[in-house]
């Protein structure tokens, strides 16, 4: 039970170990206490803005934010009580009342359901504070990737923090206070004219869908469940893990995989948004062979394979096995390259093979 350091605290009466530097929230999470959060993203520095994560601390007059309070030996922490639950509910109601809508489409982004889920958990769907909304949307930003609907912004600053801490891009910042708070670019302009690299990290951390994935949201109307398939981005050697979102036979969007070993939740504009080439009408859908007129015309697999085999073997038979050369792809999977080199080696006994690494 106790680790090397021997540090322990009491969590809802139970003595539990922790390591120096951990927050009360982190310790609680490890022990499966369901403390609600809104401004928290475990990849970012704790911020302490939403106060949803408050817990009671023996000896402290007021509840403390568990995400920003470091665990200390001997602490006695209560994560759940009638008073805490009431406080959380009131906070949520306040937040809800400021927003135009609670239920945003799941396609909006990775964390987009966080608020709606909490609102349901705390039955906080009322209109008690109906009135002013914070933030103003930016329908004038014509960028095709990032929806900026600040009517749904709750000022958790996760987007600003992910952009700064995770991306190091500092494209967006906070302007004003209270109800007038705005998330904005340096000169208040559109994202394209800012330092934004369109990595999409802000939309993926937004807990309300105020920032949303425009390309994915185009598929909102397809009434099929979203399925997710873990794969790897195909655009560079970093090898970021992604979850491909599909509806039926269609790829509708990409989610960064938070547990991806190479990227730990990060992506760039290509990995995040350049996926729809897969369904582009230009895709080759059948084999093609050159006919007698010299035109490339559609063919069956059988014909095309026979014609290709005959053409390649004609060269080999006439000019020897060193007359066939194979160029493998630096983009196709390992199995493709393996098969290409096996074809020349096991088939012809040569090493007449290369890939695109030299150019």
């Amino acid at each position, binding site marked *: 039970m106790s680790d090397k350091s021997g540090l322990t605290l009491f969590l809802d009466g139970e003595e539990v170990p922790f390591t120096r530097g951990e927050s009360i929230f982190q310790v609680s999470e490890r022990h499966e206490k369901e403390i609600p959060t809104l401004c928290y993203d475990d990849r970012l520095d704790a911020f302490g803005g939403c106060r949803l994560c408050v817990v009671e601390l023996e000896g402290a007059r007021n509840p403390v934010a568990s995400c920003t309070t470091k665990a200390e030996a001997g602490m006695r922490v209560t994560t759940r009580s009638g008073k805490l639950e009431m406080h959380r509910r009131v906070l949520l109601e306040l937040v809800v009342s400021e927003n135009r809508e609670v239920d945003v489409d799941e396609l909006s982004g990775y964390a987009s359901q966080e608020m709606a889920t909490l609102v349901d958990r705390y039955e906080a769907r009322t209109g008690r504070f109906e009135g002013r909304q914070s933030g103003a949307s930016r329908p004038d930003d014509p960028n095709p990737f990032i929806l900026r609907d600040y009517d749904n912004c709750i000022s958790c600053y996760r987007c600003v923090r992910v952009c700064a801490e995770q991306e190091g891009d500092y494209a967006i910042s906070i302007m004003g206070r209270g109800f007038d708070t705005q998330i904005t670019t340096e000169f208040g302009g559109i994202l394209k004219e800012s330092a934004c690299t369109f990595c999409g990290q802000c939309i993926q951390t937004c807990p309300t869908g105020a920032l949303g994935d425009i390309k994915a949201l185009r598929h909102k109307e397809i009434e099929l469940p979203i399925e997710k398939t873990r794969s790897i981005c195909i655009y560079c050697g*970093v090898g970021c893990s992604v979850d491909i979102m599909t509806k039926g036979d269609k*790829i509708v969007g990409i989610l960064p995989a938070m547990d991806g070993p190479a990227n730990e939740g990060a992506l760039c504009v290509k990995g995040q948004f350049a996926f729809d080439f897969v369904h582009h009408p230009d895709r080759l859908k059948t084999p093609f062979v050159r006919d007698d007129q010299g035109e490339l015309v559609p063919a069956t697999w059988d014909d095309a394979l026979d014609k290709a085999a005959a053409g390649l073997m004609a060269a080999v038979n006439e000019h020897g096995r060193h007359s*066939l050369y194979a160029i493998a792809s*630096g983009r196709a999977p390992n199995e493709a390259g393996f098969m290409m*080199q096996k074809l020349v080696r096991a088939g012809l006994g040569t090493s007449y093979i290369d890939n695109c690494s030299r150019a």
Partner: protein
Amino acid sequence: MSNPLRDMEKPDVIFCIGTNMTECHPVAATRLKKAIRNGAKMIVADPRHIGLSDMADINLQLRVGSDAALLLGMAHVIQREGLVDAGFIADRTAEAEAFLEHVKEFTPEWASEICGVDPALIEEAALLYGRAERGAIYYTLGITEHICGVDNVQSLCNLALMTGNIGREGTGINPMRGQNNIQGAGDVGAIPNNYPGFQPVTDPANQAKFAKAWGREVDLELGITKVRALEQAGDQIRAMLIDGENTLVTDPDRKHCEHALKSLDFLVVCDLFLTETAALADVVFPASGFGETDGTQTNTERRVQRLRKAVPPAGESKPDWWIVSQLAQRMGFKGFEYDSAKEVFNELCSLSGTYAGLNWDRIEFGEYQWPVPEDGHPGTPRLHEDSFINGRGIFKMIRYRDPAETIDDDYPVWLTTGRRLESYHSRTQTGRSSGIDYLLPEELLEVHPDDVSAWGIRDGGWVNMSSRRGSVRIRVKATKRSPRGTVFCSFSFNDVPVNVLTGSGYDPVTETAELKVCTVKIEVETETGGVAAD
């Protein structure tokens, strides 16, 4: 990479050379940014003022193709100032004495004459890297795509060896591989010199091993590189099988390349789209792509990961491995009956020492970095921790060599090429993904504002840019990202086929094309729209 990606948050001194990481490997760059936030210092050496330069403590804006001179100058300072890691040199390296003697000749002043960087800056950079507790080097094609690419890499190795910056957390020599599976293509043996797992074809023991596995003896002679094969097209090489490469657009010297492909008796291409290269083929096979097929791919830190099928393939398209295995069978070759990517991958593992401890199921979560020499081995996130693969790290006596072409009166401007954040390679994929055009609608030639006025051209105006091999028409963008006398553009846009111009020379060892340097002249276009590419 000698070190894992996560080590990128650990160095106290970062040395990036010939890598435009914020655009080409953006997610890796975020890790360097974190290291910098934690106090790491960064040296950036690049002919252009790139994204990384904005964050650097020292910027070495060197003339294209002069990396070896710069690195010799740095080695000189490290030696002179006694910043050499004597213990490491004694225990782990060979030829150190000769090397330390060799570099005495190459003062920062000498290097400065060639690379154009202020000697004081060279000195400063050398001291910073030389004194690092954990110094890490990152590089990309800006180092390798030169006639002296091998020398450049060796020069970086020399620096790391003399300072003992290898084999530990946050150190290393880290090439950032460009294409998503260019690492894998080498791993699986799609190279003329090695079987899968980098087992040389010249070794009779390997020949015997593969003869036993595949029932056919493979020549002990090396194959030839793609560069040679294209040269011999129509001659010794009569037929080609190309998988997923738009050779015509991405290779240097497009005219030569087009001629080569056209002079073949027979060309077979597999691809997702009817690329410029596929359009020349006799038979084109439709390959299935991202999200449509299962497979594996190996990243720049040697991590083997699974690609998964999420949707049915477009039309009748098929996985590349299936196409090639079917073709092999029809060509009458034995041993090409496979039912799944899993079977293929498991055969690869059974034949490759580096993948020996892996199989399809084991790499489900991608936690292994090769070498994984046997079952139960945890993988090797960091190379060279206790020893080098061939025993000792050997210093090489590098000298500076000029690029294949240097500027002269006829071609007075340096052209260097590269990639941009928003587009990938020949844009067969990014160009067909919606929205990308909003960010990057066209290719522009980046020219220093002073050159724009000096050359009598206009920001936003059209120019003709020609080399000894051809010419292209392109619009100008004035930007201080380019130094004076050097211009930049990417090779991604088909309407600006910049590889018409490149291809001045090749590294004699690897035959890698010198895509990063070519000399050009730039002329205002007189008749609007009058001049087309070549």
